[in-house]
């Protein structure tokens, strides 16, 4: 009896509700310096999202017309339902890559009188409002109202929409599970992609028509409404699996990996003294932190863009070739270098008080930039097989990047004073990105365009690359002078940078 009273007595304490957590989450977002600093960027992103959603809305609204045109004589609802199979497969892959799970940093709440289950349900429920779910609903609803409701009975409509919503929910939490299990096993991710790809291939090749099975099952479900319990149960199951998974992972523990840390790699850098040490630190920074590492992985993917541009019909478009060439021969360097000194933001004060000469610090940045340029150049070398022209152009653009872009990047890099959190992933991460990035890319891309325009006036655009190459050689020849110039700029800006980097 007593126990019950005590439990009842504690009840008010534990009833801090979801709303409170939601408010904290909102404050966390709104008060992050990144949000406050780059409102313009967020507005642009918002407009892009809105545009995308409008497209989805229109697509769904006119889906019946599109289906009638493409698949003449087939039942519209049935075909639409079948196509949703592709959508859900694709949705799962995209979610896996891009959907971030809303995690309120749980630690400060663990010792407060809040039920743990509440803390765990919160991020799960919150993930329901994700962008991907909104897209899914916008794909379903207009078609549902315009076509399904108009042509079918109420029980059918009800079962159809409930079943499909259940699939959306299931996808949402399935992603949660997949992320937890696969995040650290990249090979399995490829396997998963291959698996999904295989199904779609079977479907297209008409070996096993998954989409028509999917459609048939759903139509059957909708015709026997009590069966909708199955998809609903599926959604509930994924939710609870995700819940238990989260629960298992909710202890604040020191997760120390036993992985050997290879401290002695790159020992040859020792020979280069202070500059070698600084480059060594930068390499370790990349290898041991999520953000810089994933940024380089992305760059590797971006390098594949060459296949889109290096086509026969483009080989006389010198403006395009120079644009793509600048990117190809500096993909790693530009992506990594855009943050320049911000990579050191969490220990910038340390660098400023240690016996490191600013000139050497800047020089180490320059050397590392050069190494990354060479790396991008080598990786993109096979494009020269498409045409020898690409090879020649890219050699001169490599010179341009090493001799000109590098100094521009370092110079304007001193204006980037936003702290970077090394531990976060690069996916959809806009921390540290702002007007500086536009400032950077403008001259780097602008100079080749100007040179091209000049030579185009005389109808000899093919020579513009030699000029860019020569500019690069001049830059390399005068590197001491130019490095001193950017070092002076660095010294001028260092207090502002240090101040910005201290703002968490």
């Amino acid at each position, binding site marked *: 009896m007593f126990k019950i009273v005590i439990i009842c007595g504690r009840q008010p304490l534990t009833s801090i509700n979801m709303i409170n957590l939601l408010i904290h989450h909102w404050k966390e977002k709104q008060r992050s310096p990144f949000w406050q600093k780059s409102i313009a960027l967020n507005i642009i992103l918002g407009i892009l999202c809105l545009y995308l959603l409008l497209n989805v809305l229109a697509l769904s609204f006119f889906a019946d017309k599109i289906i009638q045109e493409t698949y003449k004589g087939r039942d519209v609802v049935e075909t639409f339902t079948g196509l949703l199979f592709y959508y859900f497969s694709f949705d799962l892959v995209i979610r896996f890559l891009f959907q971030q799970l809303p995690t309120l940093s749980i630690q400060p709440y663990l010792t407060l009188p809040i039920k743990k289950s509440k803390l765990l349900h919160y991020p799960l429920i919150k993930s329901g409002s994700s962008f991907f779910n909104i897209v899914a609903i916008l794909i379903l609803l207009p078609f549902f109202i315009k076509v399904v409701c108009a042509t079918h009975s109420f029980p059918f409509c009800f079962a159809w929409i409930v079943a499909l919503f259940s699939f959306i929910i299931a996808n949402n939490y399935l992603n949660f599970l997949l992320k937890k299990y696969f995040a650290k096993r990249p090979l399995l991710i490829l396997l998963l992609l291959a698996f999904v790809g295989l199904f779609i291939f079977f479907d297209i090749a008409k070996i096993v028509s998954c989409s028509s099975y999917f459609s048939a099952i759903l139509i059957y479900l909708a015709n026997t409404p009590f069966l909708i319990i199955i998809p609903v149960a599926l959604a509930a199951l994924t939710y609870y699996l995700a819940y238990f998974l989260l629960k298992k992972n909710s202890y604040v523990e020191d997760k*120390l990996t036993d992985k*050997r*840390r290879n*401290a002695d790699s790159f020992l040859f850098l020792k020979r280069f003294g202070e500059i070698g040490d600084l480059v060594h*630190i930068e390499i*370790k920074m990349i290898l041991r932190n999520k953000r810089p590492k994933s940024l380089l992985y992305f760059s590797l993917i971006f390098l594949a863009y060459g296949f889109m541009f290096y086509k026969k019909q483009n080989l006389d478009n010198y403006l395009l070739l120079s644009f793509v060439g600048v990117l190809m021969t500096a993909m790693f360097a530009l992506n990594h270098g855009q943050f320049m000194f911000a990579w050191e933001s969490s*220990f910038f004060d340390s660098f400023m008080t240690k*016996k490191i000469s600013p000139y050497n610090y800047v020089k180490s940045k320059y050397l590392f930039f050069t190494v990354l340029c060479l790396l991008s150049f080598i990786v993109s070398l096979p494009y020269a097989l498409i045409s020898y022209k690409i090879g020649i152009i890219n050699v001169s653009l490599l010179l341009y990047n090493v001799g000109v872009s590098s100094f521009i990047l370092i110079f304007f890099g001193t204006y980037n004073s936003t702290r970077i959190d090394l531990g976060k992933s690069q996916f959809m991460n806009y921390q540290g990105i702002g007007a500086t990035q536009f400032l950077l890319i403008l001259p780097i891309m602008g100079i080749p365009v100007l040179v091209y325009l000049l030579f185009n006036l005389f109808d000899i655009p093919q020579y513009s690359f030699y000029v860019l190459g020569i500019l690069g050689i001049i830059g390399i020849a005068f590197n001491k002078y130019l490095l001193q110039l950017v070092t002076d700029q660095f010294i001028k800006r260092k207090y502002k940078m*240090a101040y910005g980097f201290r703002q968490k």
Partner: protein
Amino acid sequence: MIEINDLQKVYGKKVALSINRLNIREKEFVGLVGNNGAGKTTMLSLILDLIEPTKGFVKSKGMMVSESDDWKNYTGSYLNEGFLIPFLTPFEFLEFIGNLHGKNRAEVTNFLKENNSFFTEEVSSKKYNRELSAGNKNKLGILASFLPEPEILILDEPFSNLDPSSQSWLKSKLKKLNEEGVTILISSHDLKHVTEICSRILLLENGTIIKDTNTNTETLVELENYFNV
């Protein structure tokens, strides 16, 4: 050794620090005390050229700290976590700093051995600095400031987060360094510690030095009286 002249740091309208004249002579052991917001860290940051003074200047060995980098050769410092490189292991971090001052790996290992009663985290530790406990971070930062055998040592609240035996180790270590000729400037909230080891005490209030005295038997009582509310 360190000379402060007409130094002022203003944030908006609030004067964070304003020191007319201050001279820290060679081999002095100065303790900086004051409540939160009194300007202790601001003063140390200005001496280390981490923030730009609104007015005035700091000279180290007769050279302006904001114009010459020479002071970095002979100044050891640790203010906060931002002085550690988060993704290195403690040994890699110490080795990096050792290298900057021309020390090789063997010398750094030796240095760690000499001080192993203070920093107990093993040399072969696989932990990164960011994974260390608050106390160990503090210890590592302090050790790193000793490593270059500095002539000037600047530490912000070195005793915070330390266990009692480490505190007493650090006290005798600082005393010993001072006897060997190192000029030391530390800030602390622990009045007993500073009056015990420092030869000169500076009391800051709202950004100004309101008391500048050589330590004697009465200093502790005087300070306690000031801080009692």
